[in-house]
């Protein structure tokens, strides 16, 4: 489940991945159980002529599908940021593949696009005109806290 965090003296390692206690198969079973229940009841009432239950069941199952899809998309993802000496190393795996970026600590800056939680805050590690988003699996508050921590860590 948890990937180990390798520590070396004086290094700062941030490792994050989405929490996934359910396997894909289990997720599918849960989703279809919920969807079958909601649709079964709605179809029963529709058969009796009270069809307006059906669109609401559809909307609800749509929301459920979005939620489970979002969970599934995160499985296997991770991101690691290591600050050691002058090196800042970013490693990640997302839905679209893996990546690695090695930066010079002195040129790195942290950018965040909002100051308050609840507004889909994003924080990026930027260098040489190119930014890499970090803290994607955190909530907004923790993301802002990470930004502050990284800024203090990167001060030379």
């Amino acid at each position: 489940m948890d990937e180990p965090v390798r520590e070396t003296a004086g290094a700062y390692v941030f490792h994050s991945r989405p929490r996934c206690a359910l396997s894909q198969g289990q997720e599918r079973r849960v989703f279809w159980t919920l969807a079958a229940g909601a649709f079964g009841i709605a179809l029963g009432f529709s058969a009796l002529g009270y069809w307006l239950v059906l669109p609401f069941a559809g909307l609800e199952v749509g929301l459920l599908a979005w939620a489970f899809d979002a969970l599934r998309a995160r499985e296997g993802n991770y991101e690691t940021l290591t600050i050691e000496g002058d090196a800042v190393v970013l490693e990640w795996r997302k839905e679209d593949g893996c990546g690695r970026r090695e930066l010079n600590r002195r040129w790195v800056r942290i950018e965040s696009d909002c100051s308050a939680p609840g507004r889909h805050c994003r924080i990026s590690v930027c260098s040489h005109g190119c930014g890499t988003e970090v803290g994607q699996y955190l909530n907004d508050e923790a993301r802002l806290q990470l930004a502050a921590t990284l800024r203090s860590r990167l001060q030379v």
Partner: protein
Amino acid sequence: MSDVAHAHGHDEHGHHAHPTGLMRWLTTTNHKDIGTLYLIFALVMLFAAGSMALLIRAELFKPGLQLLHPDFFNQLTTMHGLIMIFGVIMPAFSGFANWQVPLMLGAPDMAFPRMNNWAFWLLPVAGILLMGSFLLPGGAVAGGWTMYPPLYIQGGISYDLTILAVHIMGLSSIMGSINIITTILNMRAPGMTLMKMPLFCWTWLITAYLLIATMPVLAGAVTMLLTDRNFGTHFFNAAGGGDPVMFQHIFWFFAHPEVYILILPAFGIVSQVIPTFARKPLFGYASMVYATASIAILSFIVWAHHMFTVGMPAAAQLFFMFSTMLIAVPTGVKVFNWVATMWRGSMTFETPMLFAIAFVCLFTIGGFSGLVLAIAPVDIQLHDTYYVVAHFHYVLVSGALFSIFAGIYYWLPKWTGHMYDETLGKWHFWLSVIGMNIVFFPMHFLGLAGMPRRIPDYALQFTEFNQIATVGAFIFGFSQLIFLAVVLKTVKGGAKATSKVWEGAEGLEWTVPSPAPYHTFETAPVVK
């Protein structure tokens, strides 16, 4: 959300500016903040709907009309029911779920924090629509919380607003349920298998399943009312060939599981409190889980016991009578297990335990009167009498509300970092339990004697029991000010609470400091 691990050379917590004031609460995605918002909302609504109850009881102190116009009386009974169910009990349990589920599972937050924020902030909108309808021409809805046609087809603009409010609250519930299901199933800490989860999480998981299954039914039913009112359809309009009784079937198909939505989380809270103060593990954990699931499943096949008097075949009456009685079996398993947990335990009687014990005793009375009402020939006599009012208040006040009090006293030190005032807590308990019984116990006799519910006036022979009930209502109502004082005092200060507030408490939430830090379990704990 994520498992996060940090290796630190020195102080790792950078300081960033948390938004303060209104913006903090409007934009928060933190489960603890949102839990607090739910609980504050429920408390405000408790006093609003409680004040309505006191007005109702004041009017009923004597026969004849005293204080209120009969139509306003009907508005009060309707709004009292709607607000207590959708504005107090459900939001309070959602507040507990938001605070406790991630802490109990070792998760850093809910699975969808932004959806969590939306789920909460829809509620005040619905609350304003409901309460604001008192100011509209014709006043608020007066057709009963059950929304039966033809009254709900014939009423004024406030009926449309109420339907909109119900839709909004339903959407909020669905978003909350999806969040709870995904959080419980997907965000458990390593080692936290389903059968190791605290029972509170289990009861909320099953409650969320019930909500997902039934909310579209409610949404469809009220939308059909809306189209009957405004777009010329005749789903329930008898004048156009519709079937008003079918609305009752559809409504109760939603509303009977809703009863369990209101009580299953209460079972969960009590199942956390009793083992702590009995200093013994919960007796029959697995049977508690299966009993909860059985109650949930059975709740879908008993709806027509609310409508025995509409006229249905004897075979249907027998089916619904026996299926309703069947629910007593898993409920009995639960009561037996709570008593067995206390049996030979090293019990102490702090305020949460007192409320939990009162829950077990008084909820059982409510359960028994439910069994009486399940008997079709008896129900035909007692339908729409005060016996029914007594029954559901024993279930929802001494059941749901007392469990909420138990939970608040139990977890308040963890939330605030301060111990509550035990003396005031005990005053609150004793006045509540005495007041509650004085209000609702005489209602059994009133119902057996034939006093109908939802009337502002009554025959002379019902006077004494009504006067006793009114006195009890004011004792019970004003004793809630003590509760408010206890909560405010605890938030403001008091003796420092330790991490493990209660000697017999078990679970991950007691491993974090009190008050629980803003961020918890960013590094996943391992459960053995």
